[in-house]
């Protein structure tokens, strides 16, 4: 199924499409194009949001209301946010747009559950500060719910935090849009995160992999102490292996959404990844880092039935990258002078 003005399939989009597909969508497209396995999906592009919001505004202004707000008047912001979110969540989609999304949903696989995730178009730093505010809905089981969750993502643009953020910077509402990722859900046996450098020392020659049983939300949300490995990026040597006691896991709930289950006794202290899987993750992590040319912060999952490794997200690592400063050593006019670091004392 071809991409359109409103729908962008992962295979057709990349980072340069961020203004239309958002950071998350662009990154997933970029990964797929780089040959890395991601759960299949599409992006409901910003143009769709614009069509939608114009449609909503037929029954009264939305964007003008936001622009009229004073960022410091929390009460007014709260009141307005509540009202606008409710309107957005309840509004009908323009019929043509609804048809397009429905067709894409069916093309993705129809009955199988999806994740619906907001994909903001703002720049890196702002993106980071939005990270916790934007919404991800897991295990959405039918078309009606999917469309509802797409609206929920759009509505999140009108949360108190988002509105306050934009008003403080006097950002024009005309440029504000939200893309939404709709992606096949991975029934993860194990999931977690991977940094392609050490979060502790910033060392770029190692990767830190953290994972736990079930869906990745338990790790990302901090509800379980994950197993942790430090793996040499180049050598594959595993220098740290910490297997923790994993008491709970997130699993898909029968009627949609997820639920928290206890981990069976015999799996609690068992490592959630095999050595082969660790090495496979290392290979994928290296590939992604090479592709982007910078260290990455990656979310991954291992599919329960096929044991396939899939990436759910990859974004540039920001903490250490911002710190990078002086070289460890500078070339010396006389290369022999370096040995004084050993023989010169005061180490």
């Amino acid at each position, binding site marked *: 199924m071809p991409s359109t003005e409103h729908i962008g399939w992962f295979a057709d989009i990349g980072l340069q499409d961020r203004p239309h597909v958002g950071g998350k969508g662009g990154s997933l497209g970029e990964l797929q194009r780089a040959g890395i396995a991601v759960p299949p999906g599409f992006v409901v592009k910003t143009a769709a949001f614009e069509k939608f919001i114009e449609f909503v505004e037929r029954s009264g202004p939305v964007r003008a209301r936001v622009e009229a707000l004073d960022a410091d008047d929390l009460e007014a912001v709260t009141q307005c946010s509540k009202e606008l979110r409710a309107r957005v969540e309840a509004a009908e989609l323009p019929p043509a747009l609804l048809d397009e999304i429905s067709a894409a949903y069916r093309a993705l696989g129809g009955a199988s559950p999806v994740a619906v995730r907001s994909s903001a178009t703002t720049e890196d730093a702002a993106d980071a500060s939005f990270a916790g505010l934007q919404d991800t809905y897991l295990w959405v089981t039918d078309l009606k719910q999917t469309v509802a969750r797409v609206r929920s993502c759009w509505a999140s643009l009108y949360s108190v935090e988002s509105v306050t953020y934009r008003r403080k910077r006097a950002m024009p509402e005309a440029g504000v849009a939200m893309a939404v990722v709709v992606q096949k859900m991975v029934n993860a046996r194990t999931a977690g995160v991977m940094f392609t450098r050490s979060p502790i020392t910033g060392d770029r020659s190692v990767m830190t992999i953290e994972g736990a049983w079930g869906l990745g939300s338990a790790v990302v949300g901090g509800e379980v102490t994950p197993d942790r490995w430090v793996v*040499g990026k*180049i050598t594959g040597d595993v220098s740290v292996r910490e297997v923790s006691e994993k008491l709970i896991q997130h699993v898909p709930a029968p009627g949609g959404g997820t639920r928290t289950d206890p981990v069976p006794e015999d799996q609690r202290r068992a490592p959630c990844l095999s050595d082969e899987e660790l090495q496979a993750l290392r290979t994928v992590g290296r590939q992604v880092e090479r592709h982007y040319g910078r260290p990455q912060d990656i979310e991954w999952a291992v599919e329960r039935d096929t044991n396939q490794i899939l990436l759910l997200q990859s974004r540039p690592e920001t903490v250490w990258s911002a710190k990078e400063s002086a070289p*460890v*050593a500078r070339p010396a006019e006389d290369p*022999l002078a370096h040995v004084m670091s050993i023989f010169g004392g005061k*180490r």
Partner: protein
Amino acid sequence: MTTEAKGFPLPSSLKVVPGTEAAQAAYPYTIQFGPGDDERFWFYNSMHFPEPMSAFDMVTAEAAYCALGSSNTRVHCLPTTLGIDHRIINGRVYIGGNAVTDPKEIARRTDEFQKRAFYYYANWERLYEQWKGKMMQLIRDAQALPKPELPEFEPLEHVHAGRGVASNHYLLETYQKTLEGYFRMWHHHFEFLLLGYGAYLTFFGFCKKAFPEITDQTIARMVAGIEAEIFRPDDEVRRLARCAVELGVDAKFQEGVSANDIIKSLENAGQPGKDWLEELAVSRDPWFNINVGDGFYHYHRAWNDDLSMPFAGLPDYIRRVKAGESLDRPIEKLRAERWELIKDYRELLNTDEDRAAYDQMITLAHRVFPYVEGHKFYCEHWYTNLFFNKIREFGGLLAQHGFFGDAEDVFHLTRYELDLAIADLMTSWSNGSPPRGPERWPRIVAERKAAIAKWAKHETPPALGPVPDVIDDPAIVMLWGITRESLNTWLAAESGGPTNEVRGFAASSGVVEGPARVVKSVEEISRLKKGDILVCQVTNPTWAPIFQKIAGAVSDIGGSMSHAAIVAREYGLPAVVGTGNATAKIKDGQRIRVDGGRGVVTILQ
């Protein structure tokens, strides 16, 4: 961090094991612990001297520290350190560094150092070529020394030639030349060593800063040579295995048949048998001049003197050749992998300046490394074997004249006592009177043998005296891998720590479980069976043929650059080295797990 109140025992608190006082007193006064030694920090050099030292073998410590010290103190003028003092108690060699701390003196020595060491670095290849020439000459000189003999009458041809000097004089000359050569060899040994390690550690230090979590073994792999001399003896055994199959004499090599019996059966196996024996002769000279230890003990015999070690590896290698396996080390592949590793790490550096500095440092490390890896074969193996064998010949002559029962007993005399015994024999041969030695030495030799047996069972502390705040002595850090952190580990081990765990340097990654075979001396090597985990005081690369049998290796002493670590990596064998106390903590036969990537050994039962 609070300073540990706890230190190591003071030298003065160590007691000579009862009943061994006379044997202890036989060591020269210069190396007995004395007043003032309590003020200093000492550690047990179990890396080089893991077993109690017999009286004669102490010549190695004396000659080595004499040469190391002159190189550091007077020749290259290392800015922050002089030489290393050594002491002996209960047969155990303790050593202590001699740091330079006065900034003015350091500055003065730095000037000198740069004039000297930098010249060596700049002219390394030429000087190393010259070194090999000197070393080979020294080896030839040692080989040319006559066997000490005393004929009843001076040979007629000597008389007719007007030699004018009798045979007994040549005992003195040969003994003195033998000793002189050994002391000289140790000067050669240290001519480049500290500079070589220093250049390597410069690169090592850079990597640790740029990649704080890089493992020592990875850095070692970037620098280590692919065709170092240390691999050659084992390569030769593999070659001989192939020859045996090609010549169709492989059936002669069965487990449990002695090397001598195999050779005898080959002598009677027609032309193919003779051809194989010729190939053996090719391998033996020089590559079987490698000994089964580090060359520091007279009983670390060379493969050439005891073929059981190389022959022990043959049946397995032959089996593998017949199974179609190539025993060749894939040199080109290993070389390509090494460059790949260097390139991949280079790519991860943050700045072009870092990359330029990295290139400078690894270039120097590669330049010095052939010496660091290669010198051992010529010095600790080849030359040391010649030396001990020559002394053994004197032992034979003295035994023949009743000084003691067995040629090997000679090693229970100090080098000074041996000089005396030789003088005794020279004189008595001249005079026609019986020598005095036979009344004196047998009792003393028996006493010293008994002392060594007692000392071997006696645990000795890993270190003595106050713990220094920092260890800034490049020699100690480089050669023994001793740092403030490793001392803390030792202190923790002294006071207990988790009882089922032993920690050391991660030397070669991989995880393996198996029965521990605690081998306290070289003679016990034959107890190792397939799948065993070798637990020893110091691992040795010349044990290479048994590395194909074992599943993993653990040692008390050694860093990730020890040759053992290199060979373990080569064999893809998990290894943890420098644990400090594995041989004390792990009992023979216990099931253990070796995690060579983390440097942890776990006792499972």
